[in-house]
């Protein structure tokens, strides 16, 4: 069909293909040999890696069983270490307490009267309410450690507090702690000194209980949280029944009401970015935001978080307690309160927060996708932390006890501070 002349080298139509007898070129040999050696090395490396992992698992199981065998007699040295890690940030290294803020555990009438058993109960459930210790009044804000410490660990701490700090002779064993957990493990924190009076006989006079006043709007809030409306998804569908959160969805229980309200307003305005939350927040009135903030602030629930990001817990503890001034990062606890329980109204609790959420938020601060902190405090910190630091601190915070629920009277006092968006139906 084309006009040009056919190439003279063109074969005739009846030529059929065949293969010539030639040797395999040497590069093919060398490549094949090199790849085969590489392949064997890869497989051997993987198989040893798997063996190491298996061995560690076995060792871990062994260690656990020896620990269990020793559990009957609590290890007071371990108790001292655990006390330093979990209690000393508030109660002081020697349990001396902080006048007006945190009650003493050394020479404490509550401990002396109740013994290791009472310490176990309080450690397991926490305290949320006013109480008197040695005649001084305190705002009880004791976190519940039941969800973050094992029976053995609680028995070691409680025994150390009773015998090491208060000259009591009686320790408590892990099985006894397990029995208490069965009865008290999922109960709310003690309602201040009045609540403790039921636990400990002959306790000196305690302030009156301020029983939670379920507001008139509780039904509407329950509707929002549990079922949602046409424009608002049920809060609990992501954040959980107990506001405990999961993965990158944060724990809300016990966060300061003004903080929660500010975040919802920021989602509304678009100053904090998240597609799901922007949609939900736009469907809420200012009044509903206030009510929801109070609802979650007064909620107390056990920790649903566990270290999950293979973070270096030692490094995380260092960042949380001391900070790292070589990279310009202050201790988390400086602002977020002792043990990360939060400082109302602006600093949310970060203890027992979901590790994926914390690491993600730190990364968002670093990248600038989240930029709604007062004075841009978190942006600088986020940028200073690298990926492994973010995972380390997130995992460490997840290992801490959850913050106690906020006191109802405190809430009422703060209500006036909740930022209100102008021009929205009240």
């Amino acid at each position: 069909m084309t006009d040009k002349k056919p190439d003279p080298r063109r074969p005739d139509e009846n030529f059929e293909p065949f293969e010539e007898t030639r040797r395999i070129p040497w590069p093919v040999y060398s490549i094949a040999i090199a790849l085969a050696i590489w392949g064997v090395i890869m497989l051997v490396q993987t198989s040893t890696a798997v063996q190491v992992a298996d061995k560690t698992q076995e060792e871990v199981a062994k260690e656990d069983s020896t620990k269990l065998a020793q559990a009957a007699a609590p290890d007071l040295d371990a108790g001292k270490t655990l006390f330093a890690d979990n209690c000393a940030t508030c109660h002081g290294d020697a349990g001396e307490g902080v006048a007006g803020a945190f009650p003493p555990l050394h020479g404490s009438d509550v401990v002396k009267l109740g013994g290791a058993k009472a310490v176990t109960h309080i450690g397991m459930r926490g305290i949320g309410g006013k109480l008197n210790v040695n005649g001084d009044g305190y705002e009880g804000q004791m976190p519940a450690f039941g969800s973050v410490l094992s029976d053995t660990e609680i028995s070691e701490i409680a025994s150390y507090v009773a015998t090491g700090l208060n000259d009591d002779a009686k320790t408590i064993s892990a099985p006894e702690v397990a029995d208490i957990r069965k009865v008290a493990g999922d109960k709310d924190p003690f309602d201040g000194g009045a609540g403790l009076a039921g636990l400990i006989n002959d306790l000196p006079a305690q302030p009156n209980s301020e029983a939670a006043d379920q507001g008139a709007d509780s039904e509407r809030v329950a509707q929002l949280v549990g079922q949602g409306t046409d424009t608002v998804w049920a809060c609990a569908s992501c954040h959980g029944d107990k506001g405990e959160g999961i993965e990158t969805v944060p724990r809300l229980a016990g966060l300061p009401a003004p903080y929660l309200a500010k975040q919802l307003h920021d989602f509304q305005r678009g100053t904090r970015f998240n597609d799901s939350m922007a949609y939900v927040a736009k469907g809420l009135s200012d009044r509903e935001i206030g009510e929801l903030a109070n609802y979650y602030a007064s909620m107390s629930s056990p920790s649903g978080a566990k270290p999950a990001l293979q973070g270096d817990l030692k490094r995380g503890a260092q960042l949380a307690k001391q900070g790292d001034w070589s990279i310009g990062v202050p201790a988390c606890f400086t602002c977020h309160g002792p043990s990360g329980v939060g400082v109302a109204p602006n600093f949310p609790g970060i203890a027992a927060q979901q590790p994926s959420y914390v690491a993600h938020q730190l990364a968002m601060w670093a990248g600038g996708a989240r930029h709604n902190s007062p004075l841009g405090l978190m942006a600088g910190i986020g940028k200073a932390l690298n990926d492994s630091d973010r995972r380390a601190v997130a995992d460490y915070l997840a290992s801490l006890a959850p913050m106690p629920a906020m006191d109802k009277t405190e809430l009422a006092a703060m209500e006036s501070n909740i930022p209100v968006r102008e021009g929205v139906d009240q």
Partner: protein
Amino acid sequence: MQITETLGLLLALSFVISLLALTILIWAIANKQVHTPDADDARTIFEPGEGADIDYPDKPHHFDTARSGIDANSSSVVMWLIAAAVFWLIYGSLHGLAASLELHLPDLMSGTAQMTFGRMRTVHLNSVAYGWASQGGLAAVCWIIPRIFRTNLRMTGLLKLGIVLWNIGLAAGVLAIANGWTDGLEWLEIPWQIDIILAAGAACFVAPLIATAKNRNVHHIYVSGWYFLAGVLWFPVLFIVANIPGVHHGVEQATMNWWYAHNVLGLWLTPLGVGTAYYFIPKIIGKPVYSYALSLVGFWALALFYSQVGIHHLIGGPVPTWLVTLSVVHSVMMFVPVIAVAINQHVTVASNLWALKESMPLRFISFGAVMYTLASFQGSIEALRSVNTITHFTHYTVAHAHLGAYAFVSLVLMGAIYQIVPRATGKYWPFPRMIAWHFWLNVIGFAVYFFSLTIGGILQGLAQLDATKPFADSVILLKPYLEGRSLGGGLMTLGHVLLAINLIAIGFAKKTRETETENMVAAE
């Protein structure tokens, strides 16, 4: 634990045995233990009186397929397959183009469930994989097998029944997918109930091709024959094992899924494409391939190493580490057969570049053969954990898939169609200029497509790995690259339309040459 260890040992053994087999093969070739073909072997061995007059005693590698009646016998089956294949090519391309548009114009067709991305993309994949590439490849198989075996295609009636069943099954499958009825596994979306029809159709292909091979009139099987026969036997096994319902569950199902999905490429479409290129490249140029020994290494290394390749898609997934490592190692071992095939095919073309100007089919086929080399090299490297971390779950993988299934398999098959149809019908292509247009539309369109998605995919992967960026950033940055993909896809689809026009026109054209076979090359 015990079971996984045993399985791990067995699979590791499979690597060692494959390695050993390859070593023995290479040793045997090097020491001339394997009987290499000579002129006598390649020559036709005819029964007394049968076709003796068309043999060429002076030219041992010559055979007149037209006068011996072999082509005439297979041409109707081949033309049925080509017509069906090109129909699915157009149908699948339009769906692919629509799916691509939907990625950057998300509201374009969102009103109808049948036209949403999830279904359009799936229909595209099934149409082009099982409709176009499988049937186009079978057309080449049915054309080439009788020629290299110097015997008529057997049971052509059964083959035609197979074609009818396969297309009915596929049409039903595509309809089911469009209406939301699928098995929910990638490459295995067609409901298993409909797969029974497809399996029956596949069986109708296997028997005639085996019968033809059994009745061959040559002693030595040319390399294309190995690939074709192996592919025709491998595919039904893969298809049936993967589609039996209720056998695989959970993580095991995911493992089976990628075992199947990758082997459809490596043990079905690849043998079709490589076998076709192995036949037509020397056929059109008129020179033999470089080395029989390399043919052996290329084929057997593929057969030994490919079957474990697919699991590298589960890197980071909840499957045993050794299983993934084994797959990575096997993927990288694919360098060996690919280099062997590359030397055999590219040396022949590179030393006869004049033929690329002369023959449009050769241009398609040798372009496709080069893309096989590149796609395979890229695939081996993508299987490495360090690369996979960035590129997997991005559009980079999509670009790679099209480098293999489109630039390699599809272009080889298009070249084969341009070569076969005039000889099967005895007519010239009515619009020969369109063939060149088709070639350049496909090459340019594919280049735009491939580079857009490759660059976009890497950027997407890096953005996804950057914890300080919201996920949405990795989506938004892709927009220009996705638009590039639609542009490239549009050009490629246009090229396919030109092929369809030429094919329809040749159907209406008058016969221009009855048995005349001289100067055929000029017609393309």
